[in-house]
Structure formats: C-alpha cells, structure tokens
C-alpha cells in the first residue's frame, strides 16, 4: 500500500490521531504565531501610512486575511462534512466540526475590524453593504452549525446533521452573496462603496502575505487542537484514553 494512503488510514485511528495532533498542533500554532508576528510588525511599523486613509489603513492587514479565512474555512468545513457523510469517516466528522468555531472566530474578527475601520473612514459603524451583510449571514451560518452540533447528544449523528447544514450553507452562500449584491444595486444612490478600489503599492504587500500565511498555519494548529479534544471526548470510555490520562508516575 502506498505510504501516503497508509498514513491517511492510520490517522483515522483515534489513538494515532491523538499522538499526531498532540505533536503537531503546538508546532503549527508556533509557526503561525511567528509568521503573524512578522506580518503584524510589518503592518504596524514598516509600512508607510496610506496617503488617503492614514494609519487606519493598517487595519487592513487583519481584516483582509480574516475575511479570506472566514470563507476558506467554511469551504473546508463543507468538504470535510461531505467526505464524512459520503464515506462515513469519523475523523472527517471531527475535523469538520472543529472548523466551525475557528471559522466563526475569523468571521467575528472580520466584522469587528471592518466596523472599526469603517467608523473613521465613512463615519458609520455599520452599513448594509453586500460584503458586510453577507459576512454577517456567514456568521449566523457558522453559529448554526455549532449550535446544531451541540444540540444533539449522539456525537456521530450530531456531526452528520451539522455537516449537512454546512454543505447546504456552502451551496447557498454564493446565492446569498449574489442576492444581497443585487438588492444593494437597487439602492445605488446611497451606496457607500466600503472597500473600493484602493490600489496597494507593492511595498505594502509582504506583511499582507505574511498575515495570510500566518493565519492559515495558525488555523491548522487550532484545527488539530480542537479535533484532538473532540476525539478524546468521543473515545472517552475507551481504555487507551484512560491510560493516556493516567498521572505520570
């Protein structure tokens, strides 16, 4: 058997996954943190202030990577959920459900930083602009998946129900975005183009890429850590967990 395929099968074994996640989560967190630190340092101290937006422009370095993560994580969650539903792979159920809180966190950051950025720029904490509105609905979708997963007692059924919700959500998300964009075009007159074409000077890009990579790596760390907790919870009656939990003599 191909070693990569064998590794995938091994990951599906709960004790193996526990060891894998316990080892790699801190590493991913650490690398993610370092890359983000580099990016944030660049965003705050290296990049010059934007000629139009001044220092508030620095918020972009958090807002944009978080927005991308909020979308990417939702897509990944749906992929894991689809695999879990079709092939009934327990690990994919766990990974799908572990994605949800992280994605919700990034969505929250996106909304909050977008609001904070909007206030000095356009004088308002909130605008019913298509992107912000879609992002808010995305938050509700995430919270729905989390809520449904927590509401059902049996972990496998809960993951499959919430996974189905995630898949429905990912299918509807483009529709939601399109509908809100269309609705917004009806009110053309007062539209504040919140994220208009601001061209970024190439010198301003490296911290942004650092933040994009950093958030992705951090996400892997968080995913593994949360999956580890869920794995332990599901296997809680088993011997290997009891042995693992034994106080080290």
């Amino acid at each position: 058997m191909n070693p990569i395929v064998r590794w995938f099968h091994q990951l599906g074994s709960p004790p193996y996954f526990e060891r894998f996640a316990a080892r790699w989560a801190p590493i991913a967190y650490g690398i993610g943190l370092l890359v983000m630190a580099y990016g944030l340092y660049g965003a705050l101290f290296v990049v010059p202030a934007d000629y139009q937006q001044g220092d508030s422009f620095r918020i972009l370095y958090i807002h944009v990577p978080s927005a991308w993560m909020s979308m990417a994580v939702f897509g990944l969650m749906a992929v894991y959920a689809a695999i879990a539903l079709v092939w009934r792979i327990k690990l994919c159920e766990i990974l799908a459900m572990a994605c949800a809180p992280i994605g919700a966190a990034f969505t929250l950051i996106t909304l909050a930083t977008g609001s904070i950025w909007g206030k000095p720029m356009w004088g308002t904490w909130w605008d019913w602009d298509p992107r912000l509105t879609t992002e808010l609905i995305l938050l509700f979708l995430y919270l729905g998946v989390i809520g449904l997963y927590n509401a059902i007692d049996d972990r496998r059924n809960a993951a499959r129900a919430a996974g189905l919700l995630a898949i429905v959500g990912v299918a509807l998300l483009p529709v939601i975005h399109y509908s809100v964009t269309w609705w917004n075009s009806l009110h053309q007159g007062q539209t504040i183009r919140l994220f208009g074409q601001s061209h970024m000077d190439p010198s301003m890009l490296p911290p942004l890429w650092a933040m994009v990579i950093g958030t992705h790596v951090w996400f892997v760390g968080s995913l593994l850590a949360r999956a580890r907790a869920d794995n332990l919870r599901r296997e809680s009656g088993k011997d290997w967990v009891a042995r693992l939990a034994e106080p080290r003599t």
Partner: protein
Amino acid sequence: MSYEGYVIAAYGVFMVVMLWDFFAPRIQVRQQLRAARMRAARNEKGKATGPRPPEAPLPRG
C-alpha cells in the same frame, strides 16, 4: 484625525480572539483528560470493592 484608537481597537480584537482560539481547545483537552482520569479512578474503586452478592442485605443508614 487620529486613527490610533481605531487601530489599537482593531488589533486588540484580533489578539483577544486569537488568545481565545489558543486557550479554548487546551482547556477542552485538559477537561477530557481529567474526566477520563476520574472515570478510571471510579472504575478501579468499583473493581476493588467488588460486586455485592445478590443475597446480601442492602446497606442501610
């Protein structure tokens, strides 16, 4: 216009959420391991005292 407060607020939100994202799973793992430890201890205690024979009177008081 000073944007300092806004930048600090935005970066602050980011830090707080990232901190939560770091600590929440750690706490969950620790709780799971603790629950497993206590469960194992309860099972050991049960095995030590052994099952009560069916004819023995129920403990009272």
